[in-house]
């Protein structure tokens, strides 16, 4: 007979047995968690990439000093892409006697293709999103420009030969520059108005841009099509150049999600391994019988493997359906938060999850199945005849390989993987040793207690090794549950605190030295804390240790670009609160010696710098050499002015500097900013609120997704508990029947079983709380660069949750054994 025929024939009935259901649930949960996380990271990843693309206002931007040829747009149309055009140039805008230099940006219908423009009806007034461009004859102007010109909404300004009406205050456009080298304030105008201004003539410095957006593959196809035809002067930017900050936030979101997926996966693996052991154990009698009837080993292993594969397929179907449903619901919940249409999820995650299910089954169930193959046929006569236990090396080997393969798919971040896995292994080993000790202690504490307690505690002690394994399993499950619930919230809290309400929300740039006092006074009189003014000197690095920066070799391309581009330098006597020295020493506040420079650590690594290196800068036509005296870690998320290079006081003292400052201005005090730009027209104000909002919305989305996936992890944890109880169910059924036959009341048996589970839950909870606290501290410091605070709630939840969870799950799983009629059980034994 064909093994497949036999496997199919008996599969329906097999499905009804407890361990098969646990096995199926474990596979389904792993698949559901992976699918949901896969779908979400896929979608959120793409949504975040789109948000990052907002800085381009498109998915791709082609910029040229020449007018955009019609054929490029036609090519974009052919690939079904949305397009818009912009023309950008500097020009002076007049309002009566007043005039100011502005960046004129002419835009066509559809602009911006990504992100949205926000306008206000008065200076620093409430903002609203608009989904159109300025109508012909009307313009939207930056607050700074309006302040400099002294105009209000509704006033007319002259742009070249055309008079246009200021229709609204331009509060935000996605592609506005937020660098220190910000251009003059913007004036957004309908591209159709530009010809009548007469400003665009032969030799005008106009930047023409074609914006395209659409399906990722279509954008790539379009680029591949036009790439060869593009003149050399055309600059192309796409999503890979997305802003660093949005990239970081997206990275964090992915890390949170990956962490969750890994934890669900590991829990499911534990449940699969435990229920597979029982799956095999329960089949030993049948296998022995089949062998006694003449079945070959190959038949036996084929049958079990086919059933396992069928279980896997059933698990994948159930799991991906649940995962898909969860993802649909989540997407609807998230839809409000994600502006614009969310990119559709591909089928990739289902494929990945199915592959993962197969790997989980092979890695964690295979050793049990192979053991099944060696079942001696003698077992039909002697029930104690057992197959030899599989080699520990083989069991450890297959599961480790499976985990490694899976995790590589789930998190391609090797460092995070190693930390999570290493932490898990350490906790498991510690749990085992500590669990064993606790089991011994529990066993010894049973004198002088009632019969139920004694029975329960005796059970824990008697099953010595099994109890320890259960404590370890419960403990691991609880560890990850605690990690997920507490570390997630703690990390999010810490992170959001680092972006607290007082975080700077405005940058002031281009402040002249003599303006500092009056600006400080202006804020003080308005009740806003005066900002700290940070000097900024523009320079270019020319030599490193006497070698020109062009000829030097760099560890990475990024380092070469950084060394060769124009640099913003500052000097300071004191170390900024958002900086930390990681190597070398900061000069004292009274330092007045030879020029020293402190370099941001990542930049130093990328440029291949060492302490003591000599950096030579060209500043305003003069050369300055400074010695690298320290490396700094910079918290870029602090929204304080930060620099890759900070020099010692006096090093740049004689060079022309402007100042920058960051400060928090509450909405109710926005008027101060109007006064500021009126009094100091050359100062530019940059609103960071929009960027902050973007970052926070990404974190909110990520945390919501994690919470949803948390449900799967919780379920996987419970599957582990069920698998553990399932593995002792026959023994429990028999014991309970025997005790009841001897006259012990059912209630007493139940109390005994609950005592046993409570003791196991307590031990597991204790160990899990300790494990989770240690892991949390490691994860917080190593992965998220955050300080972790001790949390007593974690211990309360660990112990309480351990006892309740194990008691309730244990009771549900074992109640059949307790309630089974003693006569039936004893007769069947």
């Amino acid at each position, binding site marked *: *007979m064909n093994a497949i*025929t*036999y496997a199919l*024939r*008996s*599969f*329906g*009935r*097999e499905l009804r047995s407890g361990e098969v259901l646990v096995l199926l649930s474990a596979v389904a949960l792993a698949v559901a968690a992976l699918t949901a996380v896969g779908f979400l990271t896929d979608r959120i990843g793409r949504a975040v990439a789109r948000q990052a693309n907002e800085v381009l206002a498109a998915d791709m931007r082609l910029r040229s000093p020449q007018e955009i040829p019609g054929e490029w747009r036609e090519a974009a149309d052919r690939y079904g892409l949305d397009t818009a055009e912009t023309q950008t140039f500097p020009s002076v805008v007049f309002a009566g006697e007043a005039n100011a230099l502005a960046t004129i940006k002419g835009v066509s219908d559809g602009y911006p293709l990504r992100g949205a423009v926000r306008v206000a009806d008065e200076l620093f007034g409430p903002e609203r999103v608009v989904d159109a461009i300025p109508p012909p004859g009307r313009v939207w102007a930056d607050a700074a420009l309006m302040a400099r010109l002294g105009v209000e909404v509704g006033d007319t300004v002259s742009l070249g030969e055309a008079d246009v009406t200021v229709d609204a205050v331009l509060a935000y456009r996605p592609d506005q520059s937020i660098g220190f080298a910000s251009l003059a304030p913007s004036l957004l105008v309908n591209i159709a108005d530009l010809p009548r201004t007469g400003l665009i003539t032969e030799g005008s410095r106009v930047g023409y841009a074609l914006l395209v957006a659409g399906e990722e593959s279509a954008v790539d196809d379009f680029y591949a099509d036009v790439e060869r035809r593009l003149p050399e002067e055309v600059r192309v930017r796409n999503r890979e150049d997305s802003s660093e900050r949005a990239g970081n936030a997206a990275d964090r979101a992915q890390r949170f999600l990956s962490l969750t997926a890994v934890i669900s996966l590991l829990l499911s693996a534990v449940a699969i391994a435990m229920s597979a052991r029982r799956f095999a154990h329960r089949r030993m*009698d*049948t296998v022995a*019988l*089949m*062998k*006694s*009837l*003449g*079945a*070959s*080993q*190959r*038949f036996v292993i084929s049958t079990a493997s086919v059933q396992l594969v069928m279980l896997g397929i059933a698990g994948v179907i159930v799991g991906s359906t649940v995962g898909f449903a969860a993802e649909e619901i989540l997407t609807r919940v998230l839809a409000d938060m994600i502006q614009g249409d969310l990119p559709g999820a591909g089928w990739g995650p289902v494929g990945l999850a199915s592959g993962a299910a197969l790997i989980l089954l092979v890695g964690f169930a295979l050793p049990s199945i192979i053991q099944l193959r060696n079942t*001696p*046929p*003698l077992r*039909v*006569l*002697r029930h104690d005849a057992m197959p030899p236990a599989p080699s520990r090396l083989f069991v450890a080997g297959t599961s480790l390989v499976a985990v490694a393969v899976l995790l590589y798919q789930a998190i391609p971040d090797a460092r995070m993987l190693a930390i999570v896995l290493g932490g898990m292994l350490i906790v498991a080993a510690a749990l085992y040793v500590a669990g064993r000790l606790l089991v011994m202690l529990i066993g010894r504490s049973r004198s002088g207690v009632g019969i139920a307690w004694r029975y329960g505690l005796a059970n824990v002690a008697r099953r010595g090794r099994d109890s320890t394994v259960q404590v370890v399993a419960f403990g691991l499950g609880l560890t990850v549950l605690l990690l997920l619930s507490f570390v997630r919230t703690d990390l999010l809290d810490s992170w959001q605190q680092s972006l607290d309400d007082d975080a700077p929300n405005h940058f002031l740039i281009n402040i002249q030295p003599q303006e500092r006092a009056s600006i400080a006074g202006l804020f003080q009189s308005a009740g806003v804390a005066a900002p700290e003014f940070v000097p900024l000197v523009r320079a270019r690095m020319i030599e490193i240790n006497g070698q020109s920066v062009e000829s030097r070799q760099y560890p990475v391309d990024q380092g070469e670009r950084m060394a060769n581009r124009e640099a913003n330098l500052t000097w300071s006597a004191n170390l900024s609160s958002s900086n930390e020295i990681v190597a070398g020493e900061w000069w004292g506040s009274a330092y007045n010696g030879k020029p020293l420079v402190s370099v941001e650590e990542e930049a130093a690594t990328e440029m291949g710098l060492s302490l003591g290196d000599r950096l030579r800068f060209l500043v305003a036509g003069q050369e300055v050499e400074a010695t690298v005296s320290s490396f700094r870690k910079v918290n870029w998320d602090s929204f304080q002015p930060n620099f890759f290079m900070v020099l010692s006081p006096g090093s740049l003292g004689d060079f022309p500097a402007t100042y920058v400052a960051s400060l928090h201005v509450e909405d109710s005090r926005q008027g101060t900013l109007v006064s500021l730009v009126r009094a100091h027209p050359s100062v530019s104000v940059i609103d960071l609120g929009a960027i902050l909002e973007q970052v926070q919305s990404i974190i909110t989305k990520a945390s919501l997704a994690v919470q949803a996936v948390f449900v799967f992890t919780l379920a996987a944890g419970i599957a582990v508990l069920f698998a553990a109880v399932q593995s002792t169910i026959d023994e429990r059924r028999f014991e309970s029947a025997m005790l009841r036959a001897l006259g012990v009341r059912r209630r007493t048996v139940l109390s005994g079983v609950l005592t046993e589970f409570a003791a196991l839950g307590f031990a597991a909870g204790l160990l899990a709380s300790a494990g989770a606290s240690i892991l949390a501290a490691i994860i917080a410091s190593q992965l998220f660069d955050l300080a972790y605070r001790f949390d007593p709630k974690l211990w309360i939840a660990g112990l309480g949750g351990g006892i309740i969870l194990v008691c309730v799950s244990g009771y549900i799983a074992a109640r059949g054994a307790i309630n089974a009629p003693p006569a039936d059980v004893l007769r069947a034994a």
Partner: protein
Amino acid sequence: MSDTPDGKKNTVLVADKLGKQVSSPEGDLTILSGVSFSITAGESVAVVGASGAGKSTLLALLAGLDLPSEGRVWLNGSDLTQLDEDGRAAVRASSVGFVFQSFHLVPSLNALENVMLPLELAGVAEARKRAVNIMREVGLSQRARHYPSQLSGGEKQRVAIARAFATEPAVLFADEPTGNLDSRTGGLVMQLMFDLNSNSSTTLVLVTHDKSLAERCGREIGLDSGRLIADTRAAAA
């Protein structure tokens, strides 16, 4: 297939100086020692002895379920001690049937499928048809679609007997077949087994405590502490 040592054409089972030792915490334990006999086709043989005499161990060795520590076993011409596990399984598939004390039906297959199982394992064509026929012979046609959990002890044993005879094996081993049945049901089940046996050329090897059951066999092999102490043939045999 090798020749049996006694050279007789109709010998189906030969035990030659069989011994079995197992290791225990107290040291090596001898369960069987120097057991030799041969059984010819069509015989019905009862293996009797007290608990711990080594009856089940002998049965396991004769059926190739276990290997002896010493001596050899020929089953239907094959030296079981020279075969690997799959080789012994193949011999069982073609030549052996079993009836066990605790029935040993596959819980996830229904009665008919249980009977079909050895036929299919032996690669018999029309397994279903033959299984249906034999189910009719044991009087369980109406219960063919029932699962073991839905059958009584007597019915389970009748299914097990149907399964054992389905392949028309050369040798049928029965290990305390009435041990889990009341005496009336046990009597009916044994009657069925002897009837089927007399209608076929199957050799019956029956391990039992039951004196009256042993007396219905043509030959009694007595064991005590792992040694052969009696080998008697009934006058009528």
